[in-house]
């Protein structure tokens, strides 16, 4: 069943020098339960796309439908995980997970604790964010997103700020959570290896204004090894596609 239907999506922002197109004529479909990775050169509009997907920004033109209706966080449930630290510093781990539930009016300490355990943080319920590590904060953010039983999980470079080891552990755990809960996941990253490791499909975006450059089916069973020959060939193929999109220093200077 189609979960996300994006057709000829355009998004531009007005500025003093006229409008700047960030997304241009982007079309993409997602089926329910799919794990899709989106990669693109930095500054290409990935985060704007995310904001359109969860209803924080309205598209300038084109359609963007979730199960037939436009995204609205008061109708569909989104579990969004941001790149930056997004925990409420004045709430404990448990309080942060329950915060999302309070807003969705699905208050349940039991459910909150269940998801805290799922991300491996049982025993840390009463800790404040400043008392736990960066990797643990990301786990809390994941538990918080899952605790509202979201229709769709959207992750915006969630592991970009973490060290390589923590990142690798969290990637594996994310896959195991995904295969257990069967949620639709959209995972935005600029890290090609991460995308090949995680995604069933990978959408490659062009530089700004973002269009869909290629959509690649990663036909590899999980768990994937980054050392296998097919993994490397997928990686090289995507890096090759992206290389055309990285603006040269010359072009950057002219802007």
């Amino acid at each position, binding site marked *: 069943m189609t979960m996300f239907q994006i057709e000829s999506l355009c998004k531009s922002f007005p500025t003093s020098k006229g409008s700047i197109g960030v997304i241009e004529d982007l079309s993409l479909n997602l089926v329910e339960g799919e794990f899709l990775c989106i990669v693109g050169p930095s500054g290409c509009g990935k985060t704007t796309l995310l904001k359109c997907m969860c209803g*924080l920004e309205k598209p300038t033109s084109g359609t963007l439908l979730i199960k037939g209706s436009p995204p609205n966080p008061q109708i569909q449930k*989104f579990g969004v995980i*941001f790149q930056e630290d*997004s925990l*409420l510093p*004045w709430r404990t781990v448990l309080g942060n997970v329950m*915060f999302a539930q309070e*807003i*969705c009016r699905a208050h349940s300490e039991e459910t909150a604790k269940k998801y805290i355990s799922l991300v491996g943080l049982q025993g840390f319920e009463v800790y404040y964010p*400043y008392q736990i590590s960066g990797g643990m904060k990301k786990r809390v953010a994941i538990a918080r997103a899952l605790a509202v039983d979201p229709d769709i999980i959207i992750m915006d470079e969630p592991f970009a700020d973490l060290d390589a080891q923590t990142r690798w552990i969290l990637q594996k755990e994310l896959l195991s959570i995904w295969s257990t809960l069967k949620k639709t996941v959209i995972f935005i990253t600029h890290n090609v290896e991460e995308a090949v490791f995680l995604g069933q499909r990978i959408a490659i975006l062009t530089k700004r204004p973002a269009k869909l450059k290629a959509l690649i089916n990663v036909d590899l069973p999980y768990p994937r090894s980054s050392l296998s020959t097919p993994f490397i060939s997928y990686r090289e193929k995507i890096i090759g596609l992206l290389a055309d999109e990285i603006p040269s220093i010359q072009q950057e200077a002219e802007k």
Partner: protein
Amino acid sequence: MPGPLPVWQAFIKISTVGDLNGYTLADHAAASLHRVPLGFIAGSLLAIPLGILTGIRSVARAAATPILEPMRFIPPIAWIPLAMILLSGLGRYVFLIGIGVFFPVLLNTMAGVRRTSPTLINVARTFGASTGSVIRKIIFPSALPEILTALRVGMGIGWMCIVAAEMIGGAPVGLGTLILEYSNYLQINVVIAGMITIGMIGLAINYSMLWLENRILRWRVEINVGG
């Protein structure tokens, strides 16, 4: 200038026997203290919502700035004559303390609100939060450290205003009145004893508010601002 001993003796005498009208130091202190809370609450209750509104809505900020910005530079003491003419009794003091508290609380609330992390607001929005819940659950707690600091600073200003107001307003009893009265009799010992009492009470108020602040803001790493 009198030494510490005569001041101490004056302090004891005023505390036990009382002044020429029979009021003890405790009576004066109680009279001054009793004038503070209403003004403090009134000033804060006006300033905090206005600070939140001007913090989140640039239109409100643009409308309020030309009115409030010049008023901020009028020292609370300069409001005393107006308060004397327009108001009477406790109302004068409520007004003056309210003025003292209002501006620091307003400006700090506004600054605190504007410093709220946009990511946290987006988190709440993606979970479907209404503007009301964003204010209650994100913006207010995020601005709370600034608001509490401002309340403490405002309280200090309010306490200073009250003493000044008593001196000018001719209240029958109060620490300001005590000092002024005894300066007329040239009894410096009592004047200094009264001044020290004002300072000590101010200090006690400040530290109890600081203690409360640190308790409420346990989630902050960088607490421990003395005390």
